[in-house]
Structure formats: structure tokens, C-alpha cells
């Protein structure tokens, strides 16, 4: 089935080895691979810091959270920024608030 959820993202590699990934829309199992393969090359260059900007993300399922956790195993410093309350609650319910360094 090709009914992918509507999702947009932007990958920005800063000069200070900071990788910033901005995701908006809905991120779920139907489009998670698109995001994963788009970010993979930047991750391979070994950023010191990863900022995941999710201020405009309306929905994220467990596969999205799994992807972020996976990124967190590859980058020393990962921050989930501007997390909407609903998402923050999901991350908390999964015991991942510390792993993903959820910031308001």
C-alpha cells in the first residue's frame, strides 16, 4: 500500500559538527524509511551533536521513536527539541525522556 503519511523534513549540517534534523507533519511506519535513509549519510560523517527539531510534528509512532533512539546510539549528544506535549507524553511513557533528552 502506498498511502504514505504526509511528512516533511530538512537536514542541516552545521560547522560545529552539529546535525540538525527538522521534521514536520506525521512520521510513522509508512514514511520512516524515507527519513532514515535521508539522514544516514550525515550520521556517517560522525556529528558530535544531533538536534531533532519536532516543533511542527503532529504525530510520531513507535517506529519514529525507535529511529530517534537508534540515532542516539550513534551520536554522543542527542536532543529532541520543541517536543509537543502529546509526543512528550509518549516518550515519557516509554521511559525514554532521558535517552532522548526531551527539551521543551
Amino acid at each position, binding site marked *: 500500500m502506498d498511502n504514505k503519511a504526509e511528512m516533511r523534513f530538512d537536514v542541516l549540517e552545521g560547522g560545529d559538527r552539529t546535525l540538525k534534523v527538522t521534521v514536520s507533519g506525521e512520521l510513522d*511506519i509508512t514514511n520512516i524509511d524515507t527519513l532514515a535513509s535521508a539522514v544516514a549519510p550525515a550520521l556517517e560523517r560522525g556529528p558530535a551533536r544531533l538536534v531533532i527539531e519536532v516543533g511542527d510534528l503532529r*504525530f510520531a509512532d513507535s517506529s519514529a521513536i*525507535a*529511529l530517534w*533512539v537508534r540515532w542516539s546510539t550513534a551520536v554522543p549528544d542527542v536532543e529532541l527539541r520543541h517536543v509537543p506535549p502529546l509526543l512528550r*507524553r*509518549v516518550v*515519557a511513557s*516509554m521511559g525514554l525522556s532521558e535517552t532522548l533528552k526531551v527539551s521543551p
Partner: protein
Amino acid sequence: MAYPCRNDAGVAMTESGPISVPEAESANGTGGVEHGGEAGRAPRARRAWPYWLAVAVGVVGLVVTGVLVWISASTYTRNENRLLNLRARDAGTLLTGALPTLQIPLASAAALADATDGDVAKFRNFISPSVGPPPKGQFVSVSLWRLGAGPPTRLVTVGVAPVLGFSSPHLSEFVAQARQGGKLRVMGLLDLSQPRLGYTFTSPGLTGRYVTYAESALPANRQSRFQSSSSFSDLDYALYLGRSQTHANLLVTDLSELPIGGRHAAVTIPFGDTVLTFVVTPRRPLAGSFAQALPWLVAIVGVLLSLGAALITARLIARRTQAERLAGSLELIADENRRLYAEQRTIARTLQHALLPERLPSVQGVETSARYEAGVKGVDIGGDWYDLIALDDHRLLLVVGDVSGRGVRAAATMAALRFAIQAYAAQNDPPDAILSKLSKLVNVGRSGQLATILCALVDVEAHRLTVTSAGHLPPLLISDGRGTYVESEVGVPIGVRAAAQYTSTSIDTPPAATLLAFTDGLVERRGESIDEGLARLQRAATTNHVPLDELVGRLIEDLRLDGGDDDTAIAALRWLE
């Protein structure tokens, strides 16, 4: 579809078995699809040759063309005939008007001879201007005869001698016939080497009975043309003496071949005691060459239009046929896709249920129930599972888990975790130790997978519940019509860290309590906080007095009404009173 597993204490588990359901599905779904395909193909095979309409259009066009050609051709013919008759009548009128110029000199000469009693000199003087070689002279020979009791007597001849000779009895007889008098008599002398027309005229009622005999010469080959300036230059003609159009009667023509075939018209003109027959035929269409060409034009244009219309029709039919064929094959492909989809879905469900417990264990003092519900959209196998493991005769380990992602990889991880839990439980590991050990089996950095797992260790006799969570939603404990989530410290999901540590939380349960553990498919809706979903479940689950299977089924059906695209697993346990 739901696959309830239930176990009342002391009663053998009944499991309908997942295999039978796919068979039922294939009977209802796949069979139906194929039936639809047959029904769709049969009319196409029976359909007649599709181009008959093009042929009909062509035939109708040709028939219409034929009718139009016939109408225009017959109109042309009628018009030509009418015009030709008009022209023939005109020519006849003209000819009739010319005849007196022949008669008047002869009549006048006869009257003069009568008045002068046969004065030869006066006769000669009078008639001489009319006599000479053609075409200047009107006559080649004119002679004056007196009628008596015997044969006529010739008095004088002006011009050449009569062609028959003076002594010819035939001539005498012809002259003698003039006695009956009063009008021009005509004699054809056409079969001679010098063809001539002979005339006699006598003045009726006068004394002397004098007769004028004249001959005019005809062209030896009877050929003479109208002058090109003549208004009849568009006609060919033939002039006959008498009514019969035979060669023997031919006076003059401009045609080399006689009789006239094709379109022609004839008029008869009184000429003395006989008639002339004047036959004309057009050299070219009298109404113009366009009128002649019109039927051909109609025929050519009509045939071309008919063929064109037939070809266009055929082409449209061909396109429609092609489109229908394409639609048909698309329909077949769609059928095939539906069938494959149904098959894949069936395989996924079969595999999923094969990975779930075949039967739930029975432990004295509790009843259990569990259900797995596939996401409505999914063809993939999901990663949700439940398990109920009897540790001994009074303790149960209730497990609910959810591997992130879908497909065979998620299912494989799920199976590995499930069997690992059974193995660790069999060697009496406590839940927190089990989860710590599981952390070494999954690595999100390698596989991209996480698993949330809830372990609830139930001591049936002691009414004690120990909950350990690896990133999983808390279980709901229902008692006395009230549901409470058993909050415990939530550890990280399996897969985040290989050395993850977990903490268990133990509570005492009221008698006749119901424990409900589930995966997020039951409470998660897009655009809504998970707390709202949890509260909804809490409200829905307060009806504690329905049988456990019914409660589980009702929750699945009620809470997944508008969502349902995610898999859901529920495991439930109820202390019997």
C-alpha cells in the same frame, strides 16, 4: 477478525485455530473475486465482430450516394431531353419558315406561265435568277410543262436537263400528277449518282394548266454542316424526306454515321405533299458540362464521404475496443492484486497467530483471556504479542510486548523475545532480571528495532501483583467497578542499552480483581494524547461483571472503532471468587 484464547480454571482451553480462518476467508474473498472476473470476461468473449457499425455506416453512405447519383443523373437526362426537344422544335420552325422560299418562285413562275399562256421568254426571264449551280442557285434545273389530254409537253428548260432525262416516263408521270393541283409536290431522286429533289407546282384554278418542274441538287455525299456561327452549331442533324429515318430517305446530314444513336430528337415538318423529318443530336451537353459532370461529382464525393465515415467509425470502434480491452486487463490486474493482497494478509495473519500462544495455561483460581487484532490496513505481520506463562501451580507470568516496525523482521524479533522470556521464566528469573537479559538480545543501533514489554507476575494465592515495564504502558487493574493503572517505574525499551536495569513494583490486589495488559494500539489515536486514550479505556473497562472474554472482545471492538490501523494485543486475567 478476532481470535480469542480463553481459559477458565479447570476447563480445557479451546482454540479455534488460526488456520481455519484463512480458509474461510479464501472461500469468501478470493473465490468471490474470481467469480467476478469470470462474469466480467464472459460478455467480452460473446461480443460480435465490432466493426459491423462501420460497415453499416459505409453501406448507408453508399446507398444514399447511389440515390443522389440516380436523382442527379435522371434530372440531367430529363433536362437534356427537354432542352433538345426545344432546340429541335426551334430548328423545325426555322426550317418551316425557309420552305416558302423554295415554293414561291415555282408558284409564281407557274402563275406567270398561266397568265401569259406559256410565254417561254417571260418564264425564262423570271426564273433565271433562281437557277444555277449550288450553292448560289436555288435550283439546278427548272422546266415549264403544259398539261394536255396526253402526256405533258415540255415548253422550255432553264439550267441543266432534268436528271431523269426529258423522255423519262417517270418524269412525265410525276409532272402529270401535278394536274391534281394546288400544291408543291416533292419527288426524291436520291439513289442517283447526282442526287436531287424534284418539285412540281401548278397554279390551281387557272386556264392553261402549266406546271413548273424544278430540281435542286443535294451534295453527292449528303454531307453539309451548319455554319459554325449558326445558333445550332451545338447540334448534329440529319434531314430525311418523309417520316422514315432510313438511309434511302436521307437528304443531308453532318454526321458520318447513321442512324443517330444516343440522345436525339426528331420533328416533322410539312413539305409540299410530304414531310421532312429533322433529327438532331447534341454535340455537347446543352445545359453545360457541369450539369453533365454533376452525377459523377456526386458519386465521387459520396463514395469518398461514405468510405471516410466508415473509416472514422471503424477507428472510433477500434479505440473503444482497445479502451475496453485495457479496462478489462486493468480489471484483471486489480483482481489479481486484490487476490495477492488477500493472500498476503492471510499469510501475515497465519504467521502472526502461529507465533502467539497456541493455548493459554490453566491455573487454579483465575481465568484468562487474550486477543490479538491485526491493524485493518496492514498486510504486514505486526510486532505485537502476548503471552501467559504458568510458573507453578499458583503463579502466572503475564506478558504483553510490542516490537517497533512491521514485517518479518519485527515478527522474528518478537518470536525471539517471546521464547527467551519463556526460557528465562522457566529458570525462575524474576521479571526485572528477565528484561535485563532481553536487553542483550536487541540493539536498536544495529537492527533499528525497539521493543516495549510489560511483565506482570501474578501470585494467584497471595493476591500479589509485580509489574515490571520496559517502556510499556501500565496495566489496568479493575476492581469494584473501578479501573486503576498500576504505575511502576518505567525502564527504557528493550534495545536501547545492552545493560539496562529494571525495577519491579509490587502491589496487593483486591479479591476478584481483573488485570488487563495491552499494547498501544488499544489506546493510541492520532492527534490525541495517550492519556485520553488511557482514560477512555479506564471508563470502558469499569463494567467488571461481564465474562472476561466478552470484556476483552468489547474493548477491542469499542475502542478501535475509528482507529484500528495499528495492531493490538490484550492479555487479561481475573481472579475467580
